[in-house]
């Protein structure tokens, strides 16, 4: 898997005759595989990057492409490929990341936001971005997964949100939180988190102490394991790949940040969150689709 020539041959075999696009990155060529309808209701961009060892990322990305392109019986494939166009990025081996400090809530596009990929995102014009980041090996592992959500929030509501929790009784923060909880985008994220947990993804517990205060600079804690950038950082628009996509194309995004655990677990977690995001975006869970 680490030999670029072998990887290129395997990738060609995996894609078969499927539509694809190649972009050149500093560490090699990334292939973007497309699967689904040419007149889709949703355009979904799935990208999985790693800070050091990309085995889990490759396993997850290839499994996603295989599940979308194969002829095997699958519960959701017909609905997904019928209603959406899914772009899955098969990334080259990464340059080793050596961040100072812990896993950043907002990496500033350090992972997976090179200009050629951003141009591809721009031309694809996604409506949903799922970006998984595997930080294992680069930071002190805190086992588990956290979701950083990127979605439009009314600026007055966003500016008044509490850094964590529901806000004090009778406060503007409490009212802002209540308005946000009522919004469909917040509820989509809650359903994704809930299904991810049911699929075995260990989302982080609520933050406490110093970690909570550190996080408050850049993100709001929407719920345990769920975050969104603070209003000022959202206005900057460069927090991570999903924030860049939100600023440029208006796409709803979720960034899945993982560290620790085994390679298989991390691949499984990335796939589980991506599945949960797509299933709820297309409302397949409510339909009880069985194919």
């Amino acid at each position: 898997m680490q030999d670029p020539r072998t990887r290129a041959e395997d990738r060609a075999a995996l894609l078969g005759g499927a539509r694809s696009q190649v972009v050149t990155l500093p560490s090699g060529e990334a292939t973007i595989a497309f699967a689904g309808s040419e007149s889709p209701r949703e355009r979904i961009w799935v990208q999985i990057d790693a800070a050091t060892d990309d085995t889990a990322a490759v396993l997850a990305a290839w499994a996603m492409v295989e599940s979308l392109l194969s002829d095997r019986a699958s519960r959701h494939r017909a609905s997904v490929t019928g209603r959406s166009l899914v772009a899955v990025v098969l990334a080259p081996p990464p340059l080793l990341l050596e961040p100072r400090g812990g896993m950043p809530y907002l990496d500033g596009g350090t992972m997976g936001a090179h200009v050629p990929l951003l141009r591809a995102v721009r031309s694809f014009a996604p409506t949903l971005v799922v970006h998984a980041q595997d930080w294992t090996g680069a930071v002190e592992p805190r086992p588990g997964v956290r979701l950083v959500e990127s979605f439009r929030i009314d600026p007055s509501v966003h500016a008044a949100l509490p850094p964590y929790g529901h806000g004090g009784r009778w406060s503007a923060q409490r009212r802002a939180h209540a308005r946000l909880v009522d919004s469909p985008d917040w509820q989509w994220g809650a359903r994704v988190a809930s299904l991810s947990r049911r699929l075995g993804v260990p989302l982080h517990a609520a933050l406490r102490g110093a970690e909570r205060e550190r996080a408050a600079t850049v993100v709001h804690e929407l719920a345990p394991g769920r975050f969104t950038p603070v209003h000022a950082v959202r206005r900057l628009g460069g927090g991570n790949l999903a924030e860049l996509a939100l600023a440029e194309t208006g796409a709803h995004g979720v960034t899945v940040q993982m560290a620790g655990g085994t390679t298989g677990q991390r691949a499984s977690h990335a796939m589980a969150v991506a599945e949960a995001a797509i299933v709820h975006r297309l409302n397949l869970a409510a339909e009880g689709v069985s194919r």
Partner: protein
Amino acid sequence: MAIELIVYAAPLADGVGLAAPRPALDAIAGAGRILGERQQAVQLSLLAPAGWTCGDERDVRGFYRRAAVIATASEPGLEGGPSGRWHAALVACGWLLILGGGGSAAAVVGGLWLAAGYPLMRRRVRARRLDAVRRAAAGLAHALGEAPIEAREHAGLTRLREIAQDTSRPPAERYRHASAACGALGLGGLSELYEALGRGASPDIPWCSMATVEGDDGSVRQPA
């Protein structure tokens, strides 16, 4: 007078990358502090090798936004001091001093400080710092969306392009050579970029590759 924010179009083995070394990040953070307090004109300056043009302005502006997020998020002042259980233990000590001080005025005053005064001051200081960080981000957001972008030639970067794209050597060796040359070319901040690339690592500063999409029109191809 406009605040000038500089980033570099650093030559890479297969093209050009944008980079914001630590002095540039410090300048962006400093500009954020000023812009959080008052409006001022901003000029985005891109130092580049001779003959290079930035192409799509959105790519450059997006890079500035990324650098601004990193500069803002790494602002000092929100870390440090006891927190969590340590902070709770201090407050508990304060109450113990008040209740068990045995009538000593010094113990009661010390206890009041630990139990009430210190937590209140800490909360206000942190709120003020958090507010300053957020105002800086807001000031930068406004400025980066509007500010003009100007590309300027830098002779040092032109020389670095010759080194980085010298095909007689392997890329890692070119990057190591470029890293060593940065200081003498007046580009000491970029040394970290080339040193990391020479090791096969990703630099711990905001950077991105500008290499072109295969097929300039972003064309989609069928694999062989």
